[in-house]
């Protein structure tokens, strides 16, 4: 099997290096965010950082193991892996433990796992395998489009049933993958517009939106050369938007329960819930803002005032970076993250095998979506959706699943060299 083993030179060392940099900064940030003077040892497993350290060892070990696996394995076992993750998701629905209102955890001997995390790479593998299959054409064939959609939607539905809105939304990132594989650009755009419209419908009275849309439509018609069909299409779209906005409003007012409405309102910043989501964001902004240009320095963040933010070591980990390393550190952090994403995108594009490319795109999209929502949330630009920042946030199953997700791609990419030689 020697020819199939990746040569050390063929592994993308830059990505690997970035990974180690990230988990190191991540661990230090977790340490800083829950640090108490009485327990300064980073390997103290009674503290989050000690636990995180154990998870880092486990993740790195499994990551290295993945690099040693025959790359054909992932192609061959893509469906079984997908099936297992789906099975775990269903299992959780049946026997899961409820943590903070979401019943998405499985507890095995004191360790908690969130199968929703693993569903991400399971789905990525299955989608890649399906679309790279013989005679598959996502761009042209209806059937292929439907099945691809089903592969993505199946885990989403189950995860939504577990009350894990955040993880469900992550699966929307596959739209980038589908776009790359032939989904028309207007769908991406339309999805974006629909999303904005939906949020607007909840924020602003429906009549205002309709008036606004009507004005836009009118301006549009005034500016372009009017043909009969164009006017009709514009009117039709206006009508559709009207129905959509009103029906969202109706569902919100009449179908949702009071506590669901409150949650959405808080999410949208309409209601200030100082103890809950809204407060976390306020506190997060103060922390980041107080970092100033240079930051306060490692462990110098006044975390005591920050313990108001209960999720600081998980969802609000970026606060620690912003507060302790300031604007400079934050920009470097964003730069590094972007560099990783660029790198992975470049790697995905250089793949010759469709399977590898699609998988690579899935990795980039998933990581980007997490970054977009998580950092945006701490900056007060995105609604508070509890999803972790990959490689940084405290949380075992998240770290492990992101490691697996990334390392499978590094392994697939490493084979590129072998491929070249075999030509």
């Amino acid at each position, binding site marked *: 099997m020697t020819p199939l083993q990746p040569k050390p030179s063929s592994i993308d060392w830059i990505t690997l290096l970035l990974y180690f940099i990230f988990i190191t900064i991540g661990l230090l940030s977790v340490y800083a965010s829950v640090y*108490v003077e009485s327990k300064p040892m980073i390997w103290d497993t009674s503290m989050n950082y000690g636990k995180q350290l154990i998870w880092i060892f486990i993740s790195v070990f499994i990551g290295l193991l993945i690099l040693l696996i025959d790359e054909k394995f992932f192609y061959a076992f893509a469906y079984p892996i997908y099936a297992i993750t789906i099975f775990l998701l269903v299992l959780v629905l049946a026997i899961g433990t409820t943590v903070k209102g979401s019943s998405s955890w499985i507890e095995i001997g004191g360790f908690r796992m969130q199968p929703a995390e693993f569903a991400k790479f399971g789905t990525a593998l299955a989608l890649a395998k399906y679309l790279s299959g013989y005679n598959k054409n996502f761009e042209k064939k209806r059937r292929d489009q439907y099945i691809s959609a089903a592969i993505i939607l199946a885990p989403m539905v189950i995860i939504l049933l577990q009350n894990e809105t955040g993880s469900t939304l992550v699966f929307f990132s596959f739209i980038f993958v589908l776009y790359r594989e032939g989904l028309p*650009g207007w769908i991406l755009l339309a999805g974006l517009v629909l999303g904005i419209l939906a949020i607007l419908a909840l924020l602003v009275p429906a009549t205002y939106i309709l008036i606004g849309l009507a004005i836009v439509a009118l301006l549009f018609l005034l500016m372009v050369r009017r043909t009969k069909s164009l006017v009709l299409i514009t009117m039709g779209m206006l009508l559709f938007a009207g129905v959509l906005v009103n029906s969202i409003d109706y569902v919100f007012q009449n179908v949702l329960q009071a506590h669901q409405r409150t949650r959405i309102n808080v999410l949208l910043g309409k209601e200030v819930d100082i103890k809950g989501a809204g407060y976390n964001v306020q506190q997060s902004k103060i922390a980041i803002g*107080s970092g100033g240009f240079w930051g306060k320095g490692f462990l110098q963040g006044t975390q005591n005032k920050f313990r108001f933010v209960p999720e600081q070591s998980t969802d609000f980990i970026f606060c620690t970076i912003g507060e302790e390393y300031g604007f400079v550190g934050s920009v470097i952090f964003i730069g590094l993250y972007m560099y990783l*994403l660029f790198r992975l995108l470049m790697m995905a594009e250089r793949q010759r095998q469709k399977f590898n490319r699609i998988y690579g795109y899935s990795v980039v999209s998933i990581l980007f979506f997490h970054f977009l929502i998580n950092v945006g949330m701490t900056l007060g630009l995105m609604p508070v959706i509890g999803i972790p920042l990959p490689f940084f946030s405290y949380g075992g199953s998240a770290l492990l699943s992101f490691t697996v997700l990334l390392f499978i791609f590094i392994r697939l990419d490493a084979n590129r060299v072998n491929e070249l030689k075999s030509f």
Partner: protein
Amino acid sequence: MDKTFKQHTLLIIFIVVAFIYICRLFYLQIIDDSYFLSAQNNVLQEQTIYPARGLIYDRNGELLVYNDAIYDLSVMPEQVKDLDTLAFCKVLNITKEEFIKKFERLKHQKGYAPWKPCVFERQITIPTYAAFQERLFDFHGFFVEVRTDRKYKHNNAAHVMGYIGEVTDKDIEKSDGYYRMGDFIGISGVERTYEKQLGGKKGTRYVLVDSKSRSQGRYKNGEFDTPAVAGKNINLSIDYRLQQLGEELLTNKTGSVVALEPKTGEILALISSPSYNPNLLIGRDRGKKYMELLRDPMKPLFNRTLAAPYPPGSIFKILMALTGQQEHVLTPNTAYGCHHGYMFVGCHPHGSPLPLRPAIAVSCNAYFCQVYRSIVNNPSYKHAEDAYNVFYKHIASFGLGSKLGVDLYGEGSGFLPKATFYDKIYGRFRWQATTTISLGIGQGELGITPLQMANATATVANRGYYIVPHIVRRIEGKRNPDTLYQNKHWTTIDTGYFPVVIEGMQDVVERGTAYVARIPGINIAGKTGTAQNPHGKDHSIFFAFAPVENPKIAIAVVIENAGFGATWAAPIASLMIEQYLTGKHDTRKDLKERMIKGNLNHRNDTTATQTQ
């Protein structure tokens, strides 16, 4: 679409997002200095504003419960730095060892976290508070929280009002984080059932505090503060004067009085004796005093009116007379003879045979055993069991055998045996009327609470319906919105069967066993009862309503171990009816004196509480 464009779309999105985020960071970290405020190591402190608890009045607006400010010394443990322990202990007047012990205890409390404020010393005195306030800046991390405790204007109605106390871990868990260690919550009585209304809503104030515990002002001009919402004031349906008179009359007696307004179900008086002084359960010694009351063998904390089941005795005869008519096995003219009793149930001497009305007036045991027999052995039903089930349905429709749903904590359901109960003892179809004959006169396995007794009386007064008894009349000036306390519950007895029974009850007071209860000018319908007590002397029972033509009060009185109903229960009820209807209570001074002075507790201490 162009393939190369597709390859670069994501790249463009990345760049745009990174750009937006960096701009945002630039704004937050460099331009907007409102976030920079916190850079000077200011600490955001969350202060709780405690709302005033709602006041409690009686039905006529007499104030019963109000608030008193208390000062709790709280601490934010991690902010305690360079504390001059000696000076601190001196102000608080404790030793250093006590100080250390207290601090250790705090650390082991559930939910302790160094960044969460917790109460260090509860209810410090005003001089201590003043002394402490002077040196507040020397004691970093400590601060004083103002909250309210209860004060009771009178020493009455303890069981009705209940008391408040500190929340338990369970309360905290159930409240979804609303309650904090050391918060007060209603534990019994109205304080408990109306906790939501009386408690109000805590508010929060956010202030910036610098590293020396000096306030730097409101955070963001109070944008995130929530004001405390004061608790709602409540009007009880209790008539305070009536309640007070009742408690006076029950001095040194064990027993219960429940008075209702029949038309509304409002509780006019609710007395459980022995009681306690509500002002004991306030302040720093609350816990100690509570333990004392709990250990008291007289069980003053136990609310007999709601939970103590007594054999109902004669009220059952009334229900029997109504059920018999409804089932057509009895008419007002049905007469039964009595030769000192029926089977093993004895009776006192009186004329014989008698029809229904005089049978009620003399409370003939034999008569009602016969009625019971004719109901249960009714030939129109196949089995005695079927007939009994119908009987059960009628009796239960008066609210017996189950909780009524009063708005007070600790209601019991009493006991009304179902057919299956006898099946278990005697076997199916193996029993009939004579097997369970003592039920006919309200003895045997039966148990009904004084509240149920009063409610059944009110139902008779209403000629066939009741409204669930309740103690809260108005909330913040508006009628108690709970529809449970507005809807009429009709019994299964037709209105037409009531008059003859009521006439019989009127005879009881006019010329029967309860002559002592007669008040000139007021028509009272009543019935005495003597409930057999296997543990000691019989319980004295009387229930009545008045005026007969337009009932304004229905009352049930149970005096434990006091013998005949006419001796104690009837006079007490009569005095209370008079007070309520005329406002006078001293037209029969001798009687009143005799009732108050009667000490029934001392001679049977061992049996007094066994009915629980």
